[in-house]
């Protein structure tokens, strides 16, 4: 079921980087040596980078000392390309922090970025004559807030375009219930819930409105027992638990109102550029934690439908980042193929009639396959947030 690239991506790609520990004399020895041999670097505004006396290739530890009176961020960059080897954030006034890198030949410099001022550039330092440095720290071309804004805008435009669809679907649910047509109501519920689950509301992205729309029952209670619960899961519990349509209708009407509140909130709401990178792996982390454990199921047994929607949502979050990632993430193609493979696998559990197989009906080996495929995809998605973490350059 898994494509060849998830193998490459996970076993060769990630692990290729993870595996080889560099043998050394022993833990206490190297701890001692790095403490004593750390190169002390001043990271003030006037003396940024001072102290890098005898530059050499290989693994080395710097002790960065913030000599200013405020918080600071310190980079070690490639002086020619601006790509970063180190990014020490939140260094307090007068604090010292050690950081280790492995450098080959090249021209480098420290950049000191006080929280309240402009970047100070350190002197350029050139390393020559080091041959075949093993395990050199790979540089990262930093991603700025400004670069992320177009991506964010395009993601928001997509989300905004889905909200009217969601609204129509929840209205249909309300109409079905008012007509007493429970079979249609179930179909409408699933369609609306899937749409919502593509929107990447994971981890509080929609604030309190997510609680009203897609909240989970209070600890120790089921969605049926929790009378304070509203939204999709409350409706699900009633719809699949034998309640009469008239008991469910008021919840559907409330859901219609919450969705329209979300539409207005989303127009005025601002999203932080940091969110977009996070979103592209958090949606699926959420699916693994809550859907593939069956925790959110309130009776519809449609966890796999939710995972399918979450995969769609992940692709949509990743899509606007492609240009940024293309030059920074060698496993981008493998990641996209893993998402394809995942979605293909999940959809094998949807019958021709559109019915989804309940999670509990999967055999042990089917469930292991699903978990393994989503796990592998998550490992590939993990670097996206690290790369798209907005960094200052000036």
């Amino acid at each position: 079921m898994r494509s060849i690239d998830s193998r490459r991506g996970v076993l060769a790609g990630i692990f290729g980087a993870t595996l080889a520990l560099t043998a050394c004399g022993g833990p206490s020895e190297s701890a001692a040596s790095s403490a004593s041999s750390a190169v002390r670097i001043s990271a003030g505004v006037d003396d940024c980078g001072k102290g890098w006396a005898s530059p050499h290739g290989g693994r080395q530890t710097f002790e960065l000392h913030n000599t200013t009176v405020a918080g600071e961020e310190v980079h070690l960059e490639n002086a020619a390309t601006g790509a970063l080897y180190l990014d020490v954030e939140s260094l307090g006034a007068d604090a010292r922090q050690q950081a280790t890198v492995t450098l080959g030949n090249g021209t480098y410099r420290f950049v000191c970025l006080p929280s309240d001022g402009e970047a100070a550039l350190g002197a350029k330092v050139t390393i020559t004559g080091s041959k075949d440095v093993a395990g050199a720290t790979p540089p990262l071309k930093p991603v700025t807030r400004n670069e992320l804004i177009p991506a964010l805008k395009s993601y928001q435009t997509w989300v905004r375009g889905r909200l009217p669809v969601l609204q129509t679907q929840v209205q249909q649910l309300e109409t079905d219930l008012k007509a007493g047509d429970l079979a249609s109501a179930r179909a409408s519920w699933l369609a609306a819930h899937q749409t919502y689950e593509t929107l990447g509301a994971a981890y509080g992205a929609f604030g309190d409105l997510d609680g009203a729309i897609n909240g989970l029952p209070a600890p120790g209670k089921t969605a049926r027992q929790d009378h304070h619960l509203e939204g999709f899961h409350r409706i699900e519990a009633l719809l699949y638990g034998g309640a009469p349509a008239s008991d469910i209708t008021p919840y559907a009407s409330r859901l219609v109102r919450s969705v329209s509140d979300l539409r207005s909130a989303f127009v005025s709401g601002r999203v932080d550029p940091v969110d977009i990178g996070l979103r592209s792996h958090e949606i699926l982390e959420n699916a693994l934690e809550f859907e593939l454990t069956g925790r959110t199921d309130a009776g519809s047994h449609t966890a796999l439908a939710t995972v399918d929607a979450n995969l769609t949502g992940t692709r949509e979050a990743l899509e606007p980042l492609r240009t940024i990632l293309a030059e920074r993430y060698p496993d981008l193609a493998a990641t996209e193929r893993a998402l394809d493979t995942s979605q293909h696998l999940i959809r094998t559990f949807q019958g021709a009639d559109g019915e989804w197989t309940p999670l509990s009906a999967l055999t042990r080996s089917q469930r292991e396959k699903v978990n393994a495929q989503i796990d592998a995809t998550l490992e590939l998605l993990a670097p996206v947030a690290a790369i798209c973490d907005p960094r200052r350059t000036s």
Partner: protein
Amino acid sequence: MRRDPEVTGVSRRNLLGGAAAGAVAVAAGSTLLPRSASAATDTASHQYAFEGVHQRGILTPAQAQASYVALDVTASSKAELVDLFRTITSTARSLTKGGTPPDTGLATPPSDSGVLGPVVPSDGLTITTSVGASLFDDRFGLADRKPARLRRMEDFPNDDLDRAVCDGDLLLQICGHHQDTTLHALREITRATRGAMQVRWRRDGFHSPPRPAGSSRNLMGFRDGTANPSTADASLMNQLVWTRSGGDEPDWVDGGSYHVVRQIRMLVEFWDRISIREQENIFGRRRDSGAPLTGSKEHDVPDYAADPSGEVIQMDAHIRLANPHTAHAKKQQILRRGYNYDGGTDANGNLDMGLIFTCFNADLERQFVAIQKRLADEPLVDYVSPFGGGYFFALPGVRDHQDWLGRRLLT
């Protein structure tokens, strides 16, 4: 202090109390090492060589901590399976050696969980990889490569097996001097192989320090491991532990071993309510000293010739059934390497603890199964309940830095 034939390198400085000299590798067999040291620094650089004719974690003296993890392979082709074994090999090789995790830069999360700090100590880590019968089903075309005796563990008469915690395509037996070391290894291995295998069941165990001397005690209070065959006797190990190709065994099994794991719950509250006399009769040994009832010291050999009708050691005592000391029984001996486990509590407030019975044997049928059958309905069964585990086959060792686990099985 005891001599440990498997130790190949160790930082002398640690043993000598932290002198400033750099780490010195000490030639194999020339090092004295504390069996279970208390401080982390005593054992941090204690290293078992990964490569060898046999895997480590079999003859290796039991380290203090173990993690048993059974996994199912989710790789979907033979090529992916090969990748999986290569990755397990390279990860295990690297972890057992220790060192500094690679710096993958700002574009990725850290390459190591950091659980053991910035420099990973070897800390006596061994990772023993074994295969279960289900790996030889139709998925990878390995049916005709299956070790002849390997099969799904059967239910024995007194068993209460929960199949959710039995069997598995693979078993990793991860042992080390500290629990953070074994759990770190487990996390790094599962991360490195994500997508290609899934954990099926898992159980952590510990090996108690001598109280006050002799073999480590199990949670029934008895010394356990006393009557094991000597691991220093290579020809004995060849007869009892290492499987050989030929006969009905396939050509790749040389140097491997049948690896039996049985998760056995002890009903400790019930056990603690019976008299010492009854406890000692059930095993046939003294609780405090570990001596057989026919002898006076732990390592005295039980004298069944002088006790033919079981006046001293009853005929159905655990040790007498397990090893009646007949000529026949000699060939049935197994190498036990169990760990105690602590698993929390039951709904009724009883404590869940017991033994992760583990043994290695050259021939599952001739050795383990024969003994287990003889133990059916022994008096001990009222106080224990086997609920999980499985039969596995510990792969032959990794010969050199290019070799990998399972190479001879898969190529």
